[in-house]
């Protein structure tokens, strides 16, 4: 016990001394005011360039292709053409207004309008990357089995197998019941899709860091998938329970209170899935970014406070990252479990 606390103390002192070397940069940063909201939001939201870092006041970023369809038809160009408020083919990135941060164009009346925008934004690229990683992992695992029939895998394949079997047997099979087969692949895909993208989002440097599962469009598609899987394959009993639930008659006639509540529930369930995943991941990213920004905010408050806050910030960041690691797995699990649960409920038979 004594030894451990001593080691802890040595480590913290070394840590503080190391951080003490930083303030020169911190003071420089203090000259500019730090716009935390801007930093956090620019990360959480989508972007047309993949910003990596700034080096010697020069931005290092990867310009991504913009694909738009305006009045003149399809247009495809690199986002570097719009960098710094430039206009290209009458397209530019709105700096304010309803479409702030998005590619807009001006119509003949001179109003700012959004063209059809299929740009490969940062989130789209992150999404592709996540999908590629997911496909690689699962297909290589599947290939291993074809090469080694009737063998027990070790290492990475073994880990994937353990997770797949756990989700398949303990989550999908147990929750849905005996009609689980048509949904197994969908739910497993959902689980691994969310897990991989969550974990990719936690990597702070280039290939990761995109806030994919913390984007409402992504969770919306996933929730719609579950909505379809639930309602398209539902039994008659399920629809009877929705429109004519087993409650006292005065709750159904003359005012259909319970049918209304039940019918509303059909939509709120996937809606809750969508919001839960989106909010959890977005909040995680926000907190970690805010904590990191704390270092730069306190830079103007003097070396002592800045050093202290840096230590606090780093410690909290470590804690939050561990928590986010847990949340990343947990949210994937919860989304899958609840989806399976809803599908199972729609499979009721009297």
């Amino acid at each position, binding site marked *: 016990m004594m030894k451990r606390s001593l080691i802890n103390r040595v480590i913290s002192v070394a840590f503080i001394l190391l951080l003490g070397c930083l303030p020169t940069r911190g003071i420089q940063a203090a000259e500019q005011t730090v716009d935390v909201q801007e930093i956090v939001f620019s990360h959480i939201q989508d972007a047309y360039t993949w910003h990596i870092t700034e080096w010697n006041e020069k931005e290092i970023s990867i310009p991504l292709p913009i694909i738009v369809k305006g009045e003149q038809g399809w247009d495809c160009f690199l986002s570097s053409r719009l960098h710094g408020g430039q206009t290209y083919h009458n397209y530019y990135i709105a700096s304010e207004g309803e479409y702030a941060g998005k590619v807009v164009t001006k119509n003949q009346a001179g109003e700012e309008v959004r063209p059809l925008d299929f740009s490969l*934004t940062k989130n789209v690229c992150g999404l592709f990357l996540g*999908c590629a990683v997911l496909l690689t992992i699962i297909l290589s*695992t599947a290939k291993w089995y074809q090469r080694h029939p009737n063998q027990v895998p070790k290492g990475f394949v073994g880990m994937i197998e353990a997770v797949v079997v756990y989700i398949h047997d303990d989550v999908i099979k147990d929750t849905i019941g005996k009609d689980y087969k048509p949904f197994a692949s969908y739910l497993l895909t959902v689980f691994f899709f969310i897990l991989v993208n969550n974990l990719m989002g936690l990597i702070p440097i280039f290939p990761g860091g995109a806030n994919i599962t913390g984007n409402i*469009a992504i969770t919306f598609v996933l929730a719609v998938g579950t909505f379809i899987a639930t309602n398209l394959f539902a039994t008659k009993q399920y629809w009877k329970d929705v429109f004519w639930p087993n409650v006292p008659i005065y709750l159904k006639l003359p005012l259909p209170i319970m049918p209304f509540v039940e019918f509303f529930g059909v939509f709120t369930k996937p809606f809750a899935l969508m919001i839960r995943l989106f909010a959890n991941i977005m909040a995680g990213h926000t907190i970690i970014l805010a904590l990191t920004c704390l270092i730069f905010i306190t830079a103007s408050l003097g070396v002592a406070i800045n050093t202290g806050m840096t230590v606090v910030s780093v410690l909290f960041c470590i804690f939050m990252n561990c928590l986010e690691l847990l949340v990343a797995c947990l949210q994937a699990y919860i989304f899958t479990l609840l989806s399976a649960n809803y599908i199972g409920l729609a499979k009721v038979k009297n």
Partner: protein
Amino acid sequence: MSLLTPDSGLLFWMIVSFGIVLVVLSKYGFPVIIKAVEQRKAYIDNSLETARQANEQLANIQAESARILAEAKEKQSAILKEALAEKEQIIDEARQKAVAETRLQVEEAARRIREEKEKAIREVRTEIADLSIAIAEKVMKEKISRDKEHQQIIDRLLDEVSFSKS
């Protein structure tokens, strides 16, 4: 609240990429893994069952072989016993036979001897009778003439007879 409005472009790409991932993984990914795992499970279960059966069979065979061995031993000892008994019996029989044969032979010999003896006696008797008759005849022939001579002849004849007889 741009955070809560899904961006159409991202929505489109998400549908496309998630759709592709879903199709590919539900065709070549998860079913393959699940099937492989289930196959392996079945294979292991099968192997265990086969091993159990083999063990059982082995135990059965061992029991069977022990039984056969015991049986064979029993049979062997029975055969040996039987053979011994038979041998003794044969010897006994042979002995008895020999004894009987010997006795028969002895009896036969005795009988023959007796018969010979009786025959001889009978022959002697007839001889004696004949002789006696002959003598008697001779005596009768000479009786009237000479008494003395007669007596002499009889004596002589008798002597002769007894001599010849002895």
